[in-house]
């Protein structure tokens, strides 16, 4: 499946906008991503091992919090989006 990496996190993911991960679940896909780019891990996960509160992950257009989180099963054609909060605007 394809994982879309947002601009603020691309610098920790080889500066690539997307990552192809062979995976059966959301958790496997994210593990494949952070195994390839270990620097990304601390930006996605807190010390408790949970996804950080300012990072959301969407399977296609659905928030995985409202599916089965990491255990959500995926198809090859699905797209996983990492969507962190961004604050820019006035400046």
């Amino acid at each position, binding site marked *: 499946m394809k994982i879309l990496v*947002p*601009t*603020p996190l691309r*610098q*920790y993911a080889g500066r690539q*906008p997307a990552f192809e991960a062979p995976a059966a679940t959301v958790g496997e896909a994210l593990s494949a991503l952070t195994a390839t780019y270990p*620097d990304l891990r601390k*930006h996605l996960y807190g*010390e408790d091992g949970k996804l*950080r*509160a*300012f990072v*959301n992950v*969407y399977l296609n*257009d*659905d*928030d995985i919090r*409202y599916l089965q989180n990491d255990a959500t099963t995926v198809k090859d054609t699905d797209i996983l*989006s990492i*969507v*962190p*909060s*961004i*604050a*820019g*605007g*006035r*400046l």
Partner: protein
Amino acid sequence: MTGIAEKAAALNNDEILRYSRHLIMPEVGMEGQLKLKQAKVLCIGAGGLGSPLALYLAAAGVGTLGIVDFDVVDFTNLQRQVIHGTSDVGRKKLDSAADTLGEINPNVEVRKFDTRLSSANALELFREFDIIADGTDNFPTRYLVNDACVLTGKPNVYGSIFRFEGQASVFATKEGPCYRCLYPEPPPPGLVPSCAEGGVLGILPGLVGIIQATETIKLILGSGEPLIGRLLLVDALAMRFRELKLRKNPDCPVCGVNPTVTELIDYNQFCGIRGEEAAAPSTIKDMTVEELKQRLDKGDDLFVLDVREPHEYQICNIGGHLIPLNDLPKRVSELDSSREIVVHCKMGGRSAKAVDFLKQSGFTRVHNLAGGITAWAERIDPKVPKY
């Protein structure tokens, strides 16, 4: 917004002519134009997002436009803050914006609030308006705007940008989610780069601000499908618009079933003290630009390390060895720990992190150049451009 049309005054002949392209379309018509005239919209910030937002709302005939801003126009704003012009540099953004809006549409009442939005003034301010348009640039104000919107029952027309990506939505309506349903907590300081650090494509706030203006006008007219429960993602480089579903979180601390946030809190504290990155490294010895100049002139053996990005190095440099901050861990072997090292970036933020990293890696003779190359340009060598 109920009752707006009932108490609406009529349009005069000049206004009928001005708004004719609205009046002849059934989706707006006289009824819609009167709703716009009676509407009161508060724009938080007159910067990148606030510029196109306020310009189009004024042109469309929104009767009362409030603007909250305490900043002054500078040259680096002009690349995207199109409500201000070159001759406005040095003026208050509020005054500059009010002049531009008055020129575009003198029928609009512009209300200027020369203040920093805070927990002390937000609720009172928001109660005077129908819709709040959030054009802020920082997390504390974003959470403040969101919570104050939920507490006062005002829709929050949201937009946010980074480099060439943007987000837009409508939060805090009765039926829809709020910003905290999406992001319960802000990132710790330092983990996400700011626009001043990361840059922003000048047209992007134009795109996102106009999406906010569109949503604001739809809310006033009560027509179309507003971005409630939907997060619009804009990628200007790929020119792709995607949409994600948002849900109202029943456990949301502010708009959930049993809210724990029932009044405004200290948002700097909320955004500042959480996370391991929050504590600023305190053991770093700063060097001033004057000290560096003096020691270089004296012929001291100093190794100047520049941790900015290559494209920044192209804008200006002081001859330092370039290793971007993110590459430092894998390129640290290029450095000689027996030499005295002075690290600089643009303003001093990234170099402080670099110094911290080098100290953890065993370097002992490392200094952070306070104020970075910007301070060097200001106080040592005016030929070095500021950016």
